């Protein structure tokens, strides 16, 4: 994200917190694509639901954001949390295949399909993958955001990346 765009978001958050609902309106436009970008790779088909629930959570607690400069990290944490929650809820309703089942050599059609590999990862694995490889957080920051030990984040990431490597080399 460009510095200019980031600063615009921070300025809108500051104005919205000061009581300007038109700034709130523009902030919603501004944050929607960012939240969708975090939620969709984690919640997959339930990405739109996750995006909506994350935005409701962000806007409900906007008053608690003490430092508008921290807007994006704060929004990202909420978006990841909501995406994992929505994806887990969906997974309970539609049990997914175990990660160990995929990808298998000799199954090139499935193995070549990134969406399929992603879908077979658990929401927690997808969350680590998004934070590390899409959002560019380091392991400690990703672990802190997900409230898990760094070692767990590392092993989840390793497992998720390994699934992709297998997928592409199948």
């Amino acid at each position: 994200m460009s510095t200019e765009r980031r600063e615009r978001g921070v300025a809108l958050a500051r104005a919205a917190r000061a009581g300007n609902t038109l700034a709130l309106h523009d902030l919603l436009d501004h944050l929607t694509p960012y939240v969708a970008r975090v939620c969709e790779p984690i919640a997959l088909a339930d990405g739109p639901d996750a995006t909506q629930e994350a935005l409701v959570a962000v806007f409900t607690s906007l008053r608690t954001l003490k430092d508008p400069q921290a807007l994006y990290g704060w929004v990202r944490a909420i978006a990841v949390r909501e995406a994992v929650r929505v994806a887990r809820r969906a997974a309970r309703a539609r049990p997914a295949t175990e990660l160990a089942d995929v990808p298998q050599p000799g199954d090139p059609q499935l193995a070549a399909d990134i969406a399929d590999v992603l879908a077979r990862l658990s929401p927690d694995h997808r969350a680590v993958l998004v934070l590390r490889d899409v959002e560019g957080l380091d392991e400690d920051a990703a672990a802190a955001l997900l409230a898990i030990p760094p070692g767990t984040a590392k092993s989840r990431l390793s497992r998720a990346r390994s699934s992709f490597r297998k997928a592409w080399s199948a």
Partner: protein
Amino acid sequence: MMYAVDAVTRLRIMAAAVPGARVVERVLPAPLEAVWAVMGDLEGGFGDFQPDMRRVRVLRVSGDRVEVLASSRHGFRARLRGHLQPGWCWLQSRFLIIGMAAAPEPGGGTRVALTGGVRIPARAAIVPLGTRRELERAAVRLEALVTSPPGVHTESKRGRS
């Protein structure tokens, strides 16, 4: 602009950030275009279904930005600024917040959502007293306008003023 969320959901999100705001929703048996022809007509249909509006005059339009002067039945005047586009309207003045949304309902018809009310001056907050009742009244009037033949609409407006 394309949104990942529809207009009614956007209204719920906006209302989540406004303490005291209530959202009233209703599914009307008419297509979005017909519903918005009433809701989005600020100088016409809008003033007919919002219980406290006597007259609304559009002062300025630039893209989806709009500025209007509204007079209430109690003599108050408000200069509202905000956004108006098909299915979406958000306006604020120092003492008022008005939010309206409409989106096609998957099972047919149009879902409308209304929020807003008397604003705590210069804050993103609404005085919660009677807010839901006023919004419910507006929704009932809107439904009547959308579903009634044109002559009935004119009579109800005369009867109020």
